[in-house]
């Protein structure tokens, strides 16, 4: 499915693995941001990636727990950076350019220099 084609957003995109240009896993589509005006067309603005994207999907107490464990950060990946959707969401940029490499970089600091 091309990014421009019509698709069932919730069933086809949400909770799918995101893969960057170099075929590296870089997160899951936690939510989808829509944009539009009353009476106008509704368009997909961005994919929301990160625990902050759970806020509309989990009850308050669960969200507080998630926030305590993983924080509430979320990265928005503009829809124009989506190359296509198969069983994964393909990006046309590298994970770093889409802002999806921060958590990995933070975790890397805990590991020894080589490996």
């Amino acid at each position, binding site marked *: 499915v091309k990014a421009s084609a019509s698709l069932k957003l919730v069933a086809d995109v949400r*909770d799918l693995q*995101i893969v960057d240009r170099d075929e590296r896993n870089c997160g899951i589509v936690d939510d989808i941001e829509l944009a539009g005006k009353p009476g106008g067309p509704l368009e997909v603005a961005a994919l929301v990636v990160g625990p902050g994207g759970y806020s509309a999907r989990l009850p308050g107490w669960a969200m507080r727990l998630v926030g305590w464990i993983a924080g509430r950060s979320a990265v928005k990946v503009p829809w124009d950076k989506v190359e296509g959707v198969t069983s994964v969401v393909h990006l046309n940029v590298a994970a770093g350019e889409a802002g999806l490499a921060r958590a990995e970089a933070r975790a890397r600091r*805990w*590991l020894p220099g*080589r*490996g």
Partner: protein
Amino acid sequence: LKLAEIFLGILTAVGGFVDVSELVFMSQAGSRFGYALIWVVVLSTIGIMVFGEMSGRVAAIAKQPVFNLMRNRLGLRLGLITLIASFISNLITCAAEIGGVALVLQLLTGAPMRADGGRRHRRLHRHRLVHAVQVDRAKLRPARPVHAGVRRRPRRHPPALGRDRRRPRAAGSARTLQPRPDRLRLFRGRAAQRGDVPLRDLFLFVGRDRGRMGSQGPRNQPADHHRRLRRSARCSPSPFSPARRSCSGRPGSRPRWSERWRFRPGCRSARSGSCSRLLGMLFAIGGAAIETCLANAYSLGQFFGWRWGRHRPPREAPRFTLSWMAVFVVALIIVLTGVEPVELAEYAVVASILVLPLTYLPLLLLAGDRTYMRVHANGLLSKTLGWGFYALIVVAALAALPLFLLTSGGQL
């Protein structure tokens, strides 16, 4: 090359599937029911094959690993519940396996399982009241609560029946109900038939009484076996270390369970056979511990979309690497608290049964989805077997917790 692949497959099967949970549950079932439940092993092996084949097919065609798929199909809420339950189950299993490795190492080397030589562990158990039910072979009657870990006077025990007259009876023991342990001879091999180191001791090792293992043997054990054990207590608990006196041999004394794993002096074949068995157990449980550690990291990586895979260098998959390291440390801490590994394994198995229908269902749905799988979707046989086993595990999951609670973890 084919032969090497088959060999590798067998190694993987042993390393990945034979772990402490299997050893515990199979041994307990064997000690209580003999061969009456052997059909369960056959049935569950077919179930594992169906599940494994479907997982591999889905991963190869849909390019989606199980937890990724589960989240996509079940949604975030139910997916998170499944992830947490699975994580806890795997963590407990990992702790049990690390404990199992420690137990086998103790049997092999004679070194204490814990750094303090088990003193703290024994102290913990001394004050623990275990409400056990003593079962008479002739008539079932409830027994007095028994203090686990406290040395009991032999005269307090009711007289045992038959050949077990000389020793204290097993209290709250699953082994009190053993029908005919001699059936286990098939597994023991020729060395065991000569009365050397039977697999029965493995049953003691993983048996129901756990901490009380050392004091009470199986009820149908010949009395001379006890005399032999007491005599052989003069040997080292380790097959590799020189002989030393480690058990008093007094009537009513409580040799530790590890001291039950004895070798008749001078019998090399039994010694080497038992060492081989222990080494096999060490590699199987050790391999399973590593696999379980990684399994938790895989689950997290797949669920949250991280880079994962053991073939990746740690810095390429840092969250995955940190996850399995954290799982290992937490599991180790659990073991160091002094909890019995066998008890942990039981809890882990019950937890994994509860979570199994949730992890199995998305896989089954996707394997039958022709949009994703096209020509590789489930056929009639796969569909029948898949749904048949799904119904079976749902029934097992529904029954597991009530049964576990009603039978006090299988002790009644």
